[in-house]
Structure formats: C-alpha cells, structure tokens
C-alpha cells in the first residue's frame, strides 16, 4: 500500500533560515587563502623566481576573504548582515595588522641580537675596541646609575605630590598641579634633554655633559608618570578605612602613613616599576644631556656617561668600514634593553596581582 502521507519536509527553523552557518566565515577564509596561495605558486613557477611570495599570498587571500564574505552574506542574509560581517572582518583584520610589526620586531631583535649575548657583552666596555669584540657593560652601568638617581629623586617627590593631591589638596593649587602634571606628561623627551643640558650649562659651564644631567632629564620625564599612577591608586583606597582610623583618634599623618599607604603599596610599587620601564628606554634626552662614551664611568658628576639606548644608537650610526660587529652590538643592546623593559613590565603586573590588598567583597 502506498502511503498517502508525504514524508515530512525538513523542519525550517525560522530563526536560522537565511543565515550562514557559524563555520561559514572560517571556510571562506580557508578557501580564499588556499586559492591565493595556488595563484601565487603558479606565478612563482611561471616567473621562475626562487622565493615564494608569502606576504603577497596572505595579503590577497585576506582581501579576497573580506570581499567574498561580504558578497556571500549579501546574497544569503541581506545587506544589513552583510555589512555586519564586513565590519567584523575589518575589525579582526585591524588587530592582525597591528600584530605584524610587533611580531616582526620581536623576531628580528631576538634573531639578530642573540648572537652577541655572551659574557664579554656584559663585562667589557668599548674602550680601545675597533671592529669585533667589546661589550656594553659601561652602558648598562650608566643606565642603572642614571635611572637609579632619577628614581631616587622622582619617587619621593611624586609620592608626596600625589598624597597632597588626594589627601590635602583642595582648590586652585591642586587644580593647577593636576593640570601641570598632565602637561608634563606630554613634554617631548628631547625637550627634557635640552632642559637638563641648559640647566647644567648654567651651573657647570658651557658644553657640560655629565651623568647627573641625564638623571635630571629622566626625572622630568618620570615624575609625572609616578604622580599620576600613585594618585590613581591612592584614590582607590576606600574612604571607610580613613574614617575608621579618624574615628579611633588617629592623627591624619599617621592615618596616611599606617593605613592609606600600606593599603595602596602594591599599586604604588607597580606604578613606580612601570615608570622606570618607561624612562629606561629613553634615548634622546641622554644623548643630549649625558653624551656618549666608550669607557667605564662611575662618577655621575664628572665626565660623559654612556647608557644602553645611546649605545644602541651609536653602534648603529657610527659603523666602521667593517660594519657587521657594530650592527651586531646594536642588536644585542636592543635585545638587552627590550628584555629589561619586559621584565620590569611583567614584574609590575605580578606585584600588582600578588600583593593586591584583599578588601573583601
């Protein structure tokens, strides 16, 4: 007997009808990349070139994806969803494009720089070195000395300023300081260097370039960062803690010293480390204020002082006839510098996470 009932049609879900399946964009991406790779492979065979043009293949594959996903979605889902998918593709693309320089930079610095990372690099100076050999120990010591002095000056001043802004400052002076700290954040680093140079020229005579001058330039750059970060952290300390302390009869200065600062100390430490990370890579102000040198110099008040960023710069611009050792030293210096900055950044985040006050709730 033949059934009169026709087999049930596949149920149409009105919510998913006319929509691409979730995997469709990925499929289109893969297809587009494959097609573009194939075209470029054919081109390579045709023209007889040795290197496969991977940049071109990826570029046209991605452009093809953006166009294809728009067209397919427009045909199936309509113009509004098509535009949505188009923008999604563009936004994702923006992120990938921004990653390219970072990846390329880290890759090159590690690949080129690791060749000269040896014991000599961290123990020798460039005194009487022509061509190969030599190290950056004098530059590392200079960087540590100048950054250290800048930190010693700017942390107490910056911390006290932020305490003033959060705990004491009312009215016009506090407003002016807040505004000027913002202005100071925007001082170009080279202007800070010129300031330090002009200052020490007046004190110690024309053409003076000493380590202390470099430290002064770094202080100008570091101070606003310390103030801003500690101010933000101090404002996060709950007012209940202060009020509880006052209610117990504790004077204001002891409240700040024993309640507010211990609560915020992890955040303050993080801010200080991040500000050190910011100024330790500054080149221009040290080039102007502290000059450059190939010798060890432990005296901040006498003679020029080399620093790691300036070392990288000078190794790059003053290449000898046999330029490879100079370039190698520049990359090795860059790698050391990046490593220091990254370690400071990571340590700062770790400190913030581990020692964050447990406020409950």
């Amino acid at each position, binding site marked *: 007997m033949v059934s009169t009932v026709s087999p049930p049609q596949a149920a149409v879900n009105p919510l998913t009808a006319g929509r691409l399946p979730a995997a469709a964009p990925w499929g289109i991406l893969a297809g587009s990349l494959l097609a573009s790779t194939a075209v470029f492979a054919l081109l390579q065979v045709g023209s007889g070139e040795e290197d496969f043009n991977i940049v071109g293949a990826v570029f046209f594959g991605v452009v093809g994806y953006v166009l294809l996903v728009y067209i397919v979605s427009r045909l199936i889902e309509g113009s509004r969803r098509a535009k949505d998918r188009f923008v999604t593709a563009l936004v994702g693309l923006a992120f990938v494009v921004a990653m390219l320089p970072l990846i390329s930079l880290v890759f090159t610095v590690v690949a080129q720089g690791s060749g000269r990372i040896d014991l000599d690099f961290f123990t020798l100076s460039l005194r009487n070195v022509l061509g190969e050999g030599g190290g950056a120990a004098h530059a590392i010591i200079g960087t540590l000395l100048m950054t250290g002095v800048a930190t010693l000056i700017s942390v107490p001043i910056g911390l006290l300023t932020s305490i003033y802004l959060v705990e004491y400052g009312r009215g016009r002076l506090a407003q002016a300081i807040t505004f000027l700290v913002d202005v100071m954040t925007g001082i170009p680093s080279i202007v800070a260097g010129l300031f330090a*140079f002009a200052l020490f020229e007046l004190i110690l005579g024309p053409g003076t370039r000493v380590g202390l001058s470099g430290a002064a330039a770094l202080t100008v750059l570091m101070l606003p960062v310390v103030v801003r970060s500690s101010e933000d952290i101090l404002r996060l300390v709950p007012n209940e803690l202060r009020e509880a302390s006052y209610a117990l009869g504790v004077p204001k200065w002891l409240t700040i010293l024993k309640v507010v600062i211990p609560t915020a100390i992890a955040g303050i430490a993080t801010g200080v480390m991040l500000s050190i990370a910011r100024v330790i890579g500054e080149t221009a102000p040290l080039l102007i204020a502290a000059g450059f040198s190939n010798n060890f110099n432990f005296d901040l008040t006498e003679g020029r002082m080399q620093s790691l960023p300036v070392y*990288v710069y000078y190794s790059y611009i003053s290449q000898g006839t046999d330029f490879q050792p100079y370039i190698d030293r520049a990359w090795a210096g860059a790698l050391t510098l990046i490593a220091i900055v990254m370690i400071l950044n990571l340590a700062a985040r770790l400190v913030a996470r581990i020692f964050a006050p447990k406020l409950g709730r």
Partner: protein
Amino acid sequence: MTSPEIIRPKAKQRPGDRVFSASALISGSLILAILAAVAGFLMLQGIPGMFADPESVSIYTEGENFVEFVVPLIFGTLWAAALALVMALPLAIGIALFISHYAPRRLAQGLGYIIDLLAAVPSVVFGLWGANVLAGAIQPSFVWLEENLGWIPLFAGPVSGTGRTMLTAAIVLAVMILPIITAISREVFLQTPPLYEEAALALGATRWEMIRTVVLPFGRPGVIAGAMLGLGRALGETMAVAMVLSGSGVIVFDLIGSVNPLTIAANVALRFPEAYGINVNVLIATGLILFAITLVVNSIARYIVNRRKDFSGAN
C-alpha cells in the same frame, strides 16, 4: 531662612601633621617649579639663538636665517605626525572595538596586554627595526606605488633606493602611537552603558549597527582625546625618526622620494652632539618651538578628556 550655625571644632595640630602636610605641599609646588624651570631655561638659552646673527651660525645654509631654518622643520614635524595619525587612527579604533566588543571576553584582557607591550618597546629599538627591517622590506612597494600611482603628487618619486623615506618614518610613528590611541578608545568603548547596547540589539540592530549608533557616538570624545595624545607623542618622537628618515631641511610632499623633510626633534638629535657655540642655542630654540607645539596639542587633548571626568589618559 537662616541655617543654624555649624560649630566646627578645630582639629588639634600635631607637629607630625604639620611636617607631613608641609612636605606634601612643597612637593606639589615643586612640580610647578620644575615646569617653570623647563620653560625658563629653554627660553634663557633658546631666545639668544633665535636672534643670533645668521653669519655666526654654521648650521644654517648660505644666506639662511632662523625663520627659514625652522619653518621646513616645523613642516616636517607636523607632516610626519599627521601622516602617522591618519594611518594609526582607523587601525586603533578597529583594535579597540575588537578588544572591547568582538574578542571573546576571556581573551580580551590578554589581547589588551599585547597591545600595551607595543608601548613598552623603546623608541631606539623601533628606530633600529624601521631602518634595518621595515625600510628594506617596504621599498619594493614604493616602486609599485610610483609606477601605478605616480600621478598623485604624494607618490611622484623618483623612488628612494634605501626605502628610508617619509612614508616609512610615518609608518613607524603610527605603530608607536597605536597603543596610546587604542588604550584610551578601548576604555571609553567599555564604558558604554550596557543598557543602551542591549536596547539597540533588542530593537533588532546587528552588532555593527549597535556599535555605529551607540558605542561610537558615546566614545567619540575619548577617541578624539586619544588621537590628540597620540599626535602629541608623534610630534615629539625623536629617535625613530632620526634613525629611519634620511632627511634635510626642505618642504617636500613626496612620500617615497630620496629627498625628505626632517622633524624638529630628529634634527636636534642628529646635530646636537657635534654642535658648538651659538649653534647650540639655535637648536635649543627649535626645541622651545617643539615644546610650544606639543603644549598646545596636549592641552586641547586634556581639555577634551577633563570634560568627561570618568576617565583619564594616564591610566
């Protein structure tokens, strides 16, 4: 109606309190003093350079005076920064949207860290990378640009053989200011009231329509402020430009040629180590002009940021 008089008992002044508040006040005032000193010393040393006898200044080319010396440098500074901003702004908005509205929630914070890492790379490393890697890699595309778009004055050529041109420098600058603009845009995008977003979605908007009608209008002041801060950084950026760009004091709009303008900051960095006598004052005077330009740009940015107190550029 008279309000009852409030009796405020005067707090007892302890010596510790006085010392502490005084030292806090002094530190705060020190900021004012330092900024005044920066402006003051630059003027003290720079203004003699502005009015120096052109005959006595050896870094001027023949028959040049201070204005003719500094105008091409100002042009180069503004031109490089503007190009960098044009390239970085759309990209930064895209990245900020990606992190705030597109990426999976659990990934978003990590992706933010990665972008922040870009900000941590020292400028001298960017310069090294730009001059040694990017310039060489990008030079072939300049040849293509000249052949196919040569009728646009920006790509007129003749193409520089090294690739160390204005366009390369502007790309490096764009990469350097990307994290600042992204960080501030991201922060304002995340502050969009969720109720507005949900209302737009409930009315049937797609994700892009929701972003266009709710998130972008809400975040516009933040994006503008971020762009201005990025511009301020690009104006003052020294080493990357000094190392990447092979320039001189000329006004040229061509982006890919071998003759390029130089920026104020890069010019100071290149000439200062060998400068002597009155030349030093001339260079300090150009630094003073740079200081004034960035001051104006940053003040405008801060004004926009401070109109909306909820967020700030420094965090």
